[in-house]
């Protein structure tokens, strides 16, 4: 088990990008112009890190491997939709990340004491729900691509096309408040800001339109869930068990 512990700790470390960006934003004059208030930047990027840690999705890679190695065939015989297997795997690994995330939070507050805050209980619960929403959207988006594995062996290459806009428009590298107004307005019509920026602002206690955020998340889930299920069903119909 200690092998896995090291692995999970490394994954937690590989998400350090928001902290590198925080160091830049704190130094840069552009960061002060954001007017997030004292400690606001620190809280935003720590929250962004946490939201990312607990909403990260890798279903397309797991699925591609299972499909290529022929492990998918027995899953399809089971009386439960195979996607549930991946949902369970994601949720349980996120749980094991909790201690490492807690350690990183402790180190963070030691380095940036000005950013210390304890979110109120309602905020914390709202942020947890928003993070879960972000996870659901991310999972459905990747499931759509994963379903394409039924047609092409290397569908995971398409995941890069999804990850690039996610990286830049989600708020992981810069709060959306820093975007030029036109870009920000355009980004709001994509699913990406609702994956990091919105939950992070809720958790950080920054001003945010909670109702609009949850409405957008629900709308995306309502749009993606039927699409993912439909594409999956079409794919299974033409599945020809590789390696079996």
């Amino acid at each position, binding site marked *: 088990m200690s092998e896995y512990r090291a692995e999970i700790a490394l994954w937690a470390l590989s998400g350090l990008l928001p902290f*590198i960006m925080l160091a*830049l934003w704190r130094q*840069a004059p*552009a960061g002060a112009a954001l007017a997030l208030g004292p400690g606001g930047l620190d809280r935003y990027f720590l929250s962004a890190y946490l939201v990312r840690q607990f909403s990260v999705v890798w279903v397309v890679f797991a699925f591609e491997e299972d499909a290529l190695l022929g492990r998918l065939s027995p899953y399809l015989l089971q009386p439960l939709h195979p996607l549930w297997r991946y949902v369970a795997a994601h949720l349980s690994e996120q749980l094991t990340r909790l201690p490492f995330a807690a350690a990183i939070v402790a180190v963070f507050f030691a380095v940036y004491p000005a950013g210390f805050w304890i979110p109120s209980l309602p905020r914390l619960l709202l942020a947890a729900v928003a993070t879960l929403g972000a996870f659901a959207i991310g999972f459905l988006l990747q499931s759509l691509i994963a379903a394409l594995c039924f047609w092409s062996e290397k569908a995971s*290459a398409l995941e*890069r096309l999804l990850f690039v*806009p996610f990286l830049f428009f989600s708020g992981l590298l810069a709060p959306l408040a820093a975007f030029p107004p036109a870009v920000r307005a355009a980004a709001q019509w994509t699913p990406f800001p609702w994956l990091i920026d919105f939950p992070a602002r809720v958790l950080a206690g920054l001003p945010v339109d909670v109702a609009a955020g949850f409405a957008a998340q629900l709308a995306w889930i309502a749009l993606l869930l039927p699409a993912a299920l439909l594409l999956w069903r079409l794919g299974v119909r033409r599945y020809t068990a590789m390696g079996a």
Partner: protein
Amino acid sequence: MGRYLRTLRRFWGTALAGQLEYQLNVGIELVAAAANLAGSVFILSLFFGQGRQLGGWSWQAALVVQGIYTLLDGVASTWLRPNLGAIVTHVREGTLDFVLLKPIDSQFWLSLRTLSPAGLSEIGLGLGLVAWAAPRAGAAFSPGGLALALLVMLAGLVTLYALWFLLATTSIWFVKTWNATEVLRAALTAGRFPISAYPPGLRLLFTLVLPVAFLTTVPAETLLGRSTAPLVGAALLVAGLSLGLSRAFWRFALRHYTSASS
């Protein structure tokens, strides 16, 4: 030496022939690389505007750093990731035994076995960005200066290779180092920005512990004609030391290698 060159030509010829089977992937990579660069430049632009600077660097000069980063990232995708990622598999499946038995240097074989065209588009885009931004940032190209800049860039490349190889070598003990390379990748993204934009503590870390400064910032400064002789010397020293260290560490690790099935 001639034998090594001949082997190299065989390696890369077969690798490229194999990869070109997946033409769609090459197209996707091209789109992804272009979008990635556009996004990076967009994020970088957020730090500028209204006469602002980033750590004393102008917009065009910061773009040179970004271009060199893109170039190095492309080299990593084309050369380092496919080769050094395979070391983990070799260790896990025991096929490293076969590599060690071959009458050729094992570090050479493992480091240069294959090439992937995945990063070629990034290399092209990075070169293009550097060529566009450097004259606008005030670089006065002279043959001597250009040669010096190329030398420092080469030193950066050697340093990058050594860092990757050091990390890949640890798989002899830990087997699953793929995640560790992801950590390295995450840390190296710090090189997207000039090192002077970071707070002093991180600047020290990125210079002495994880030499990110010598990968992008110092080559950019040399290209812009702003670097000093000690800085160039330091870049060469870091490259030489890292390469020597990676070599020594590989030899040390092999003494602890116990194959997969035993």
